């Protein structure tokens, strides 16, 4: 390991300005002012970061998908009121206040985007990946989704329809991918291991049992 002891990552920020990039310095300056003026509480900032680093992520959504695969009554509730059905797991709130689940089937493959910013269902998927927020994805998935899928290595039959959901309001969409073949008898926990983040955005497919985890 290189010697990084002079880079403090705690709150004892005692850096010389020259060590920081202009952007790091800008963020540091703003945070200092906000704390100094009493607008934000440092412990609250840490709690927010901890939430999205360790508590909320795509494993949440994978549990929702796995249950929908195994439990037709749950899948029906998800179709009728996804916010409530997702809430059964305790997943709720910011950027998932109004959820809609869209189900892939033999004829249609669903994909989700926010062309105007980067709206994304945080409670079930966590924070969006960089590519989801990037200009290439936001610009192209609405006009040429098959080329985007090709870049993700997703083989989609030419006859399969593509349905793209542009998240232009506060409705957040979760794709429920098709259950892979050969998964009969698998438990909910085993099924959840097959559900990838990208399969719930529409830029991927679930793993097969052979691929495993």
């Amino acid at each position, binding site marked *: 390991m290189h010697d990084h002891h002079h880079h403090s990552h705690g709150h004892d920020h005692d850096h010389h300005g020259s060590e920081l990039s202009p952007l790091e310095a800008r963020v540091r*300056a703003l945070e200092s002012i906000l704390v100094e003026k009493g607008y934000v*509480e440092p412990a609250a900032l840490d709690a927010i970061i901890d939430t999205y680093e360790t508590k909320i992520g795509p494993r949440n959504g994978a549990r929702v998908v796995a249950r929908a695969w195994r439990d037709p009554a749950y899948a029906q509730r998800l179709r009728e009121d996804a916010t409530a059905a997702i809430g059964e797991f305790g997943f709720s709130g910011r950027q998932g206040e109004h959820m809609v689940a869209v189900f892939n089937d033999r004829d249609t493959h669903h994909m989700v985007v926010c062309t105007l910013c980067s709206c994304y269902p945080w409670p079930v998927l966590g924070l969006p990946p960089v590519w989801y927020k990037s200009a290439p994805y936001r610009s192209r998935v609405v006009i040429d989704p098959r080329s985007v899928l090709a870049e993700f290595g997703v083989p989609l039959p030419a006859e399969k329809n593509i349905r793209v959901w542009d998240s232009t309001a506060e409705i957040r969409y979760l794709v429920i991918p098709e259950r892979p073949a050969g998964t009969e008898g698998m438990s909910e926990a085993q099924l959840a291991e097959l559900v990838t983040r990208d399969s719930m955005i529409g830029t991927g497919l679930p793993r097969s049992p052979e691929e495993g985890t």
Partner: protein
Amino acid sequence: MNGAQDMGGQMGFGPVVPEANEPPFHAEWEKRVLAVTLACGAMGHWSIDASRHARETLHPLDYLGSGYYEIWIKGLEKLLKNEGFVSDDELRAGRALAAPRTPNRVLHAAEVAAALARGSPTERPATQPARFALGDRVRTANEHPAGHTRVPRYARGRIGRIEQVHGAHVFPGTSAHGMGEQPQWLYTVAFDGRELWGHAADPGLTVSIDAWESTLAPVA
């Protein structure tokens, strides 16, 4: 506004580049930007629509040349300056130079989990019946407001059909500008790919947007 944020259908940005095993953050400062943005939003002086508008009013070169959290901090600085919470001098100095403005609220650590789990629902009681029903054909307004709008350019003046009815929701066109929530019925409107992109469009493509009632007109 017709800003750089309205990317749907633009060309030339190159391939999508996924990152294997991507971490939630790529640098310490990104975490701080996320946290201060949410904490400052919790002060209760602007809406999420105003936040989006602050970001999309960055100069297009700045918007396109900035990463996601860089756009966020630039937008946040704008909001804080507009509302009198910080000044340019303070941002330059990196410390407080004037007495604080008292915010409506300060988010405390003990409240974070509950605040995030609650979020900010935008559905409101409807004061009148929905104008459109499932399956109705509608045309989106071909309007180009200078202020905030959530109708992307690629879907303006296009004919689609109502696919979902979501209840009455806060209207961003007013909420972004301090003109109140003025809730309207919100719909998912689905368009055939050819209606949006012409004859070269993927024949199997359907694209939807979520659109507020005032941006839609009936089609016989």
